[in-house]
């Protein structure tokens, strides 16, 4: 079978660190893992590390805890077993993602699990000075996340051309949702409404079986799912600084044993749960991720895993996360280089900011990270579409704006088409035009235009004196939402509802188009 997958964008990575600095950070991380080591609150993980040569002793604390001193050799050998190249599947073959640590092919996707859905509409206001002068202003309404809204988000994201994968951006809070049925409903709402790769964290270990069975039914069986893993998981197994979380470690064991891909994600905050200084922050997060990847490989050699780096910086006025700042890019770019050094595909972060509504602040914060992180060559950039108020709200209008921005960035970072035959063609063109009366190249734009090499103007541009970007983006959002839904076949839905307990009955109904 010919391998089909999304193209993403192949970039020439911008490298912030030189080889000496990478070695320095690598050694610092390994030194941290040896001393002070990690605080492991999961007995099974502690025993597994011990069985492979780690020094383990019980800590005296309120909860059962083991200190684990990890020798550098253990970490290096285990991390080296992680695959450098694997595919994340999707309902549509052409939506699969080829992750290769040696190839800086960049994909963008959604992320977080925000509580709030931010709905937007334009409202007309009249000038108090001139009653004839009116202006359209965006008005926003906060709504609690529900399964219906998550389904809507998945349908929208399926239509967004530059979104390559779907991480549930919304927390489902319907009255009928409980911890026990949260995961199956979350995954079903996602899988039923997008043909792209679906990724999420696991709320409870007990629901993993139901989620995996659901994915098997959609993919065509247990083997088909492992060949085309349409789902994968995020596991934040480390609570910074350097502490292995008990129940997340159990989930890591279970996911790896199921043979499905996962992200080992860590998100220390520079200035509170990690040093704010670049070297200290990166050495610590790298240590945490390396220990997590090592755990995965000790559970099952060759298990597909992503190096999940989400380092952030603290605001110094309230100690919340500060995303759209230079340090964020510095931390994250360093992590991308380290992932490349270890030859593990990198799950990275961009497109988050403090802005609470779409507008100029959001554009600044998002562009600042979207662009730099794409330049870094991270394979899998999450959080990139639709998030506002840090990661606390998901706004479909913002997702549409982000999609346009990411499209331009992908175009900008494309590989240069400068090869000898093309060079000759260009020389012929220049000679031809210089021999013509007006020496104008415009006619010769057409070939590049038709080949998709020439970008279009900003989709939401306004040519007059008003800024109508949000109004136009809302119109475009309405067009996208009126398009047909990519829902699963009714037979598959019926089988899923028969086999998987806990699904909300309304989720199985065909979607209504247009909102």
């Amino acid at each position, binding site marked *: 079978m010919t391998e089909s997958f999304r193209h993403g964008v192949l970039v020439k990575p911008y490298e912030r660190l030189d080889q000496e600095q990478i070695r320095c950070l690598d050694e610092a991380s390994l030194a941290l893992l040896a001393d002070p080591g990690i605080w492991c609150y999961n007995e099974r993980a502690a025993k597994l590390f011990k069985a492979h040569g780690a020094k383990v002793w019980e800590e005296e604390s309120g909860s059962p805890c083991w200190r684990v001193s990890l020798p550098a050799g253990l970490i290096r050998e285990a991390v080296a077993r992680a695959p450098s190249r694997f595919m994340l599947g999707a309902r549509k073959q052409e939506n699969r993602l080829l992750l290769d640590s040696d190839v800086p092919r960049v994909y963008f996707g959604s992320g977080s699990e925000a509580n709030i859905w931010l709905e937007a509409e334009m409202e007309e206001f009249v000038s108090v000075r001139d009653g004839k002068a009116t202006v359209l202003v965006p008005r926003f309404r906060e709504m609690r996340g529900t399964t219906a809204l998550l389904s809507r988000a998945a349908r929208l994201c399926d239509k967004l051309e530059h979104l390559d994968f779907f991480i549930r951006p919304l927390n489902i809070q319907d009255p009928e949702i409980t911890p026990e049925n949260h995961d199956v409903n979350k995954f079903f709402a996602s899988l039923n409404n997008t043909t792209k790769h679906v990724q999420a964290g696991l709320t409870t270990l007990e629901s993993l079986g139901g989620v995996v069975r659901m994915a098997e039914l959609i993919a065509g069986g247990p083997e088909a799912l492992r060949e085309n893993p349409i789902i994968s998981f995020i596991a934040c197994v480390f609570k910074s600084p350097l502490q292995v979380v008990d129940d997340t470690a159990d989930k890591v064991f279970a996911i790896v044993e199921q043979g499905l891909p996962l992200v080992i994600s860590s998100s220390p905050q520079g200035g509170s749960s990690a040093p704010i200084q670049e070297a200290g922050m990166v050495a610590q997060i790298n240590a945490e991720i390396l220990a997590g990847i090592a755990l995965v490989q000790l559970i099952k050699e060759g298990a597909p895993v992503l190096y999940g780096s989400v380092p952030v910086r603290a605001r110094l006025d309230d100690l919340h996360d500060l995303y759209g700042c230079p340090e964020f890019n510095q931390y994250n770019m360093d992590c991308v280089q380290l992932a490349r050094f270890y030859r593990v595909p990198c799950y990275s972060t961009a497109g988050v900011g403090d802005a609470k509504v779409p507008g100029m602040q959001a554009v600044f914060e998002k562009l600042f990270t979207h662009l730099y992180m794409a330049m870094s060559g991270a394979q899998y950039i999450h959080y990139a579409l639709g998030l506002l108020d840090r990661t606390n709200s998901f706004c479909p209008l913002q997702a549409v704006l982000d999609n346009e921005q990411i499209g331009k960035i992908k175009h900008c970072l494309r590989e240069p088409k400068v090869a000898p035959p093309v060079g000759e063609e260009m020389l012929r063109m220049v000679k031809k035009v210089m021999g013509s*009366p007006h020496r104008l190249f415009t006619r010769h734009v057409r070939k590049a235009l038709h080949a998709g090499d020439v970008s279009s103007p900003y989709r939401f541009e306004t040519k007059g004196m008003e800024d109508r970007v949000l109004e136009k983006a809302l119109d475009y959002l309405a067009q996208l939402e009126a398009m047909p839904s990519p829902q699963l076949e009714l037979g598959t839905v019926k089988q899923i509802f028969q086999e998987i307990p806990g699904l909300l009955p309304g989720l199985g109904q065909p979607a209504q188009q247009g909102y």
Partner: protein
Amino acid sequence: MQEKEILERIAFNVIQGRVEAEDEGFDEGLDGQAAVTELVEEALTQGIDPKSTVIEGLTKAMEVVGEKFEKEEYLIPDMLASAECVGAAMDILSPHLVQAGVESRGKFVIATVAGDLHDIGKNIVAIMLKGAGYEVIDLGTDVPADRIAETVRENQAPFLGLSALLTTTMRVMGEVVGRLEQEGLRDKVKVLIGGAPTSQEFADEIGADVYCKDAFQAIDALKAMASSA
């Protein structure tokens, strides 16, 4: 080839924007096939009336191109490619049309005024006008007012187009209009101006006839002048 087939192929290639056989078209896979230049030569060889070539092969095709542009199916490069096709065809056909007593839509002198070397907009207008059937006399860039007025007089041109990109050179357009007045030519020539810093207000201020935002407005203005004449 039959006359009908040749004329249809000329029209098709105008719409495709293919001047010569080596040109790519709007659609894929046309490279290497005879294009407007070769087909117009073929039409002459076969004795097809040049007026038929102009009307059936060129004019109707440009109407289709205009419609495609309005529907945003075509962009400026496509429009220019088609206009260049018509211009190339007219270069070949002109002597034969003169022999047959067919006149162009009129002489149009065009120039970028003194002190200004910018000519992209001026060139686009020149190509489009030639494609629309005007006899374009292009004086190039940095052209003094005297020379512009002299060319208008020598050619008895009913139309003059002036272009400037710089705020410092746009004033020269006023000098050209003044020179036309001094030479007694002002009431014999319509003056169209264009360029980024210019406007209808500026056109009024210097005594030009029309400000044109782009090449399409220039053609529309000329059509309006023709219909009101």
